[in-house]
């Protein structure tokens, strides 16, 4: 086994980004992701890359916009309120088809809320919290190792699709430590040439990058093109399944909730209840097939989230009455225990 290092989730994201050759990090402090900003302020400078603590989250996302349009890999991170502020910028990136990685270490909301981990921003991430019908890829790791790995894939996916990628974790995953294998194999994607960047028109005709489409029908055409792209993203759906084959009931959960569900599954199986788990790793595009397949023999699903019911809509849209879909959630940073979930399972069965 390769040498493992004990690492915080937030830091693993930073180190993964650095490994993925992220050239520029722009951030503004906010709990619970401050250690990432702090880490990057040191590491990026040491590596002679770009670190800026921007004046605001809005400036940060627009700096990412600027860096990305030169072809450089760039990222920003924040937590829920700060991510809300970035929505216009993310919409612009989507409109301009600019790659970039945006980390949301979710906390409790609405408003200032609290600094516990939470999953209240699923809708915002998966449905484009900004204006105008765009989508971002959304990745939801559930371990520190996976954070380290997925952020590397995130940069590839961003470049592959010329689209912003959101990594959605929460305060608990961001703050927890686990061993990480820094040499872990990570999927590499075939990437198209960056033949659209702005870096001075020395060897070519001048280019422009913009999201304004004023000619009649031009924006509609552009949006249909984006739509096709979003559909193509289904190639890169990621999903973990555990014990679905013999399950009487399948839990569906992402991120930290999936971790709790894994404990609950172990606990339930000890008690003889056959519980399975589907863990969407890409939240957009959403793993339809895995869930559909499970409905062939599983007739009960329990969606567990740290919110009032968001991903459950995606699950219901897929299952479309092929099975019963139940929901168990707690908002505002309340983290369910495995016992609560097992109780809920018992109640349903």
């Amino acid at each position, binding site marked *: 086994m390769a040498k493992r290092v004990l690492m915080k989730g937030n830091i693993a994201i930073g180190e993964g980004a650095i490994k993925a050759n992220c050239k520029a990090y722009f951030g503004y402090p906010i709990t619970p992701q401050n250690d990432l900003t702090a880490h990057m302020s040191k590491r990026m400078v040491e590596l002679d890359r770009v670190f800026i603590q921007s*004046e605001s989250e809005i400036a940060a996302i*627009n700096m990412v*916009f*600027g860096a990305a349009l*030169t072809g*450089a890999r760039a990222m920003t991170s924040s937590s829920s309120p700060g991510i809300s502020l970035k929505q216009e910028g993310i919409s612009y990136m989507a409109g301009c088809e600019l790659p970039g990685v945006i980390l949301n270490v979710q906390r409790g909301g609405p408003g200032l809320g609290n600094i516990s981990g939470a999953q209240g921003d699923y809708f915002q991430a998966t449905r484009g919290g900004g204006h105008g019908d765009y989508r971002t890829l959304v990745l939801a790791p559930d371990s520190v190792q996976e954070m380290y790995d997925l952020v590397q894939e995130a940069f590839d996916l961003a470049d592959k699709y010329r689209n912003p990628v959101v990594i959605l974790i929460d305060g608990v995953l961001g703050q927890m430590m686990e061993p990480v294998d820094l040499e872990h194999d990570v999927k590499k994607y075939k990437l198209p040439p960056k033949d659209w960047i*702005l870096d001075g028109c020395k060897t070519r005709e001048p280019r*422009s*990058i913009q999201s304004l489409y004023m000619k009649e029908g031009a924006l509609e055409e552009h949006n249909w093109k984006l739509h096709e792209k979003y559909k193509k993203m289904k190639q890169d759906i990621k999903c973990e399944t555990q014990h679905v084959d013999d399950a009487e009931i399948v839990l569906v959960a992402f991120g930290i909730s999936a971790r709790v569900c894994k404990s609950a599954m172990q606990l339930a199986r000890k008690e003889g209840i056959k519980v399975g788990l589907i863990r969407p790793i890409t939240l957009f595009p959403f793993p339809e097939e895995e869930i559909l397949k499970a409905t062939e023999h599983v007739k009960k699903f329990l969606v567990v989230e740290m919110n009032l019911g968001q991903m459950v809509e995606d699950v219901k849209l897929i299952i479309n009455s092929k099975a019963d879909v139940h929901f168990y959630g707690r908002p505002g940073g309340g983290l369910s225990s495995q016992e609560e979930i097992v109780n809920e399972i018992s109640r349903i069965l």
Partner: protein
Amino acid sequence: MKKILFKTEALKDTVMSYCPGCGHGVIHRLVAETIDELGIREKTIGIAPVGCAVFAYDYWNFDVTEAAHGRPPAVATGIKRVLPDRVVFTYQGDGDLIAIGTAETIHAANRGENITVIFVNNCVYGMTGGQMAPTTLIGQKTTTTPFGRDEKIAGYPIRVCELLSSLGGVTYLERVAVTDAKNIIKAKRAIKKAFQVQLDKKGFSLVEVLSSCPTDWGLNPQEAIEYIEKNMIPYFPLGVVKDKS
């Protein structure tokens, strides 16, 4: 006979969508000529604002992007930090630069970002049809100050160069006006200087250009020029406001 004055390479041979007599056209030309004279067309990246100049990428013959309203300085920062040897400039209106973009402007300036800002002050929101801008003069009627700007409700016209001058990262600030040939030639000199500051890696430079918006001022082009001379220049005095270069 030799052609001595004409559109140089950095300006495309297309019709610009500005209204007759609008100041933007002249300023576009000055920027383009500067870039050609400095021989930096192939390494320049311009940032168009959201404002009447949003289509600047259709007019300039070099790489241009368009930033969200008010965010050009942040976008410029992102570009310049990863490509420090390219020439990066923003072109912004008064609404863009000192209303919604106030924070981005002040902080890019304060960080001493090695970029150049061309700030087109026409005392009004041109593109959206003539609303009050932060630089709208007291008493000036706009669609959102139908009784004239009243400082008790809407505050005072902001003098951007003066506001920025106390910031450590700011190297060069000058205010010019594109009213007549003489002032236009001066404006060109200021713009060229501002780009030179960047080429010399000396930090943040900004040229504020007083410019006319005949359409939204409800004046003809000639009257608009007179308006600049009579009303704007007295409040926004021309000249170098800061030069650390």
